């Protein structure tokens, strides 16, 4: 069969299944198996067992359940409130006050827990009632929590980086390092945005009147210490080559349990729930890898990869034109599906083209993760939006619709696009740190 027809048929079947509500793991796998039938590859069928084994028996992937477990434990440790207060003690006096705390606390907490959704719930339930009481502009409050939560997947440890690294055989350690500077720059851009908005219109956020003494600041430092220390161990260990990302995940999980024991928040029920959620979330992600690995295999044995790459290269796209096209594709996909699913769906097809066009794979990892951040706040499937909406309603504010939340997050959407432009103009922001490991 001609490759173009095969590819288009494949896309039609895949999207028909996906939009009908098929589980992503099964949709990817089913289409690939149908593809094996169509190309009549007996070898492909006989390789099924081997493909499953080779792609799941992976030490790198072990990092996923371990990081998720660490995040689940931290999420229930009762530390988010303390951390939030600690951050406020240091940056609460900036124009914009607690809004900056939202950004910083969300960025840190989402990085550690690996879940921007859980972060929006945890930080949102602490921050929203307080800022409502103090008369902060609602749009800025919701936006800072929704937007801030997206930062977590860029700042390591980050599950999308692990998935991308495994699918494209890139070093997860380097990808983690590549995310740090763009993550910090993005957080600063978010804070600068709040700073400017509040400077221009002081009524948006009241000045933080509470007296902050040095003893409060010192206590704040103690409250922030565990999370900063945890990120420090993970990133420091990886950067210095003392630990692999998987080992850092194991150490992080052990440390988080120790932290809960120290704070006396660890009990059997909490431990069981954390473990249950780890099994659910990790299996969900890891089972998609089985389907995605069949897709990769199909793309190779059917020759689609080779032909599609040759075709795209023959179109003489410039790299920037190609990247703009990808932004459009990922934007559309991001409106429709979860961010991690986007990686599974696109990488088996796009990866050879990216290599052929000479795009730096580490840089592209950062580009991809920023696109996923965008997906988290784009309707109709932007999970952050819905969780935030739920949290807002839970705090007793009933007159806010989902449309209001979407509009609140819109500036952050534009700032994420700005960040894409910045790393395109200054790729060193993403590539410098991994190059110096």
């Amino acid at each position: 069969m001609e490759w173009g027809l095969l590819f288009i048929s494949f896309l039609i079947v895949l999207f028909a299944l996906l939009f009908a509500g098929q589980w992503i793991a099964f949709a990817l796998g089913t289409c690939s198996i149908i593809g094996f039938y169509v190309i009549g590859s007996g070898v492909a069928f006989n390789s099924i067992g081997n493909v499953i084994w080779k792609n799941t028996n992976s030490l790198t992937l072990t990092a996923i359940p371990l990081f998720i477990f660490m995040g689940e434990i931290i999420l229930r440790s009762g530390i988010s409130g303390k951390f939030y207060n600690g951050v406020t003690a240091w940056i609460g006096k900036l124009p914009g006050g607690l809004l900056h705390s939202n950004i910083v606390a969300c960025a840190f907490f989402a990085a550690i827990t690996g879940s921007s959704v859980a972060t929006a719930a945890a930080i949102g339930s602490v921050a929203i009632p307080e800022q409502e009481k103090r008369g902060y502009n609602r749009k800025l409050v919701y936006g800072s929590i929704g937007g801030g939560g997206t930062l977590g997947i860029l700042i390591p440890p980050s599950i999308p980086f692990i998935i991308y690294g495994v699918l494209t055989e890139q070093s997860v350690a380097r990808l983690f390092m590549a995310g740090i500077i763009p993550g910090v720059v993005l957080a600063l851009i978010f804070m600068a945005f709040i700073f400017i908005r509040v400077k221009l219109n002081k009524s948006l956020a009241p000045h933080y009147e509470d007296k902050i003494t040095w003893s409060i600041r010192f206590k704040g430092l103690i409250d922030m210490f565990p999370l900063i220390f945890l990120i420090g161990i993970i990133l420091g260990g990886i950067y210095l080559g003392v630990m692999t990302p998987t080992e850092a995940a194991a150490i992080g999980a052990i440390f988080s349990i120790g932290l809960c024991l120290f704070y006396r928040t660890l009990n059997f029920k909490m431990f069981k729930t954390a473990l249950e959620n780890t099994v659910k979330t990790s299996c969900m992600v890891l089972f998609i890898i089985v389907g995605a690995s069949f897709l990769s295999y199909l793309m190779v044995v059917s020759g689609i990869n080779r032909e599609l790459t040759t075709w795209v290269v023959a179109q003489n796209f410039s790299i920037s034109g190609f990247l703009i096209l990808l932004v459009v594709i990922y934007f559309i996909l991001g409106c429709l599906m979860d961010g991690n699913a986007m990686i599974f769906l696109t990488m088996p097809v796009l990866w050879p083209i990216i290599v052929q066009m000479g795009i730096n794979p580490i840089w592209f990892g950062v580009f991809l993760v920023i696109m996923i951040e965008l997906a988290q706040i784009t309707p109709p499937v932007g999970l952050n939006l819905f969780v935030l909406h739920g949290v807002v309603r839970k705090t007793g504010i009933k007159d806010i619709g989902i449309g209001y939340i979407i509009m609140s997050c819109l500036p952050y959407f534009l700032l994420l696009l700005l960040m894409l432009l910045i790393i395109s103009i200054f790729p060193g922001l993403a590539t410098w740190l991994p190059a110096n490991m």
Partner: protein
Amino acid sequence: MKILKMTNEIIGKLALIGALLAGVGVICMMILVGLDVVLRNLMNISIMISDEISGYLLVAFIFFGVTFAMRTGALLRIDFIYSKMRGYFKHIVDIILYVVTLAYTLILLKYSFIFVQNSFNFKTTSNSMLRVPMWIPQSVIVIGLFVLALQISISLIASILTLFKEDNVLQSILSNEEDDGEDQDFGEEAVF
């Protein structure tokens, strides 16, 4: 209907046992990998087998845990159209999706079984010092997929029967995707 209910309960138990084993697997991975780092960096000793065992544990984790993930509704789907489907139409779509899912799972099961059988027949072992017969860690794929196929089968049967009559037992089977105690209490304390 009674048999159906009982079968569903048995599959539920199997899924729970799978989840328990997967949970134990995570703890073992954490201890094994963590211990290796500590021993290597502090005492210059390495547990040579930790990488290999962790890999096997991950395979077991995925395939033992996947049925539990499915029963608790954790598997990811694009549901902005699906969630709007109602009544007869939704039942038909469900049946089609379950048939497709079952066919896919059975194909994986068949070829995974052949793969494990080959490892057994050819006495394949790992390259490490452990010389693990590969069929042992590989069998978890077959076991996990078998339980998953059972889960999908019972959901499919319940979906088909629902077309003909509304029944509480059928509903309870189809809504296995219950939220099993996920607590949203993150133990926050707001002290500003």
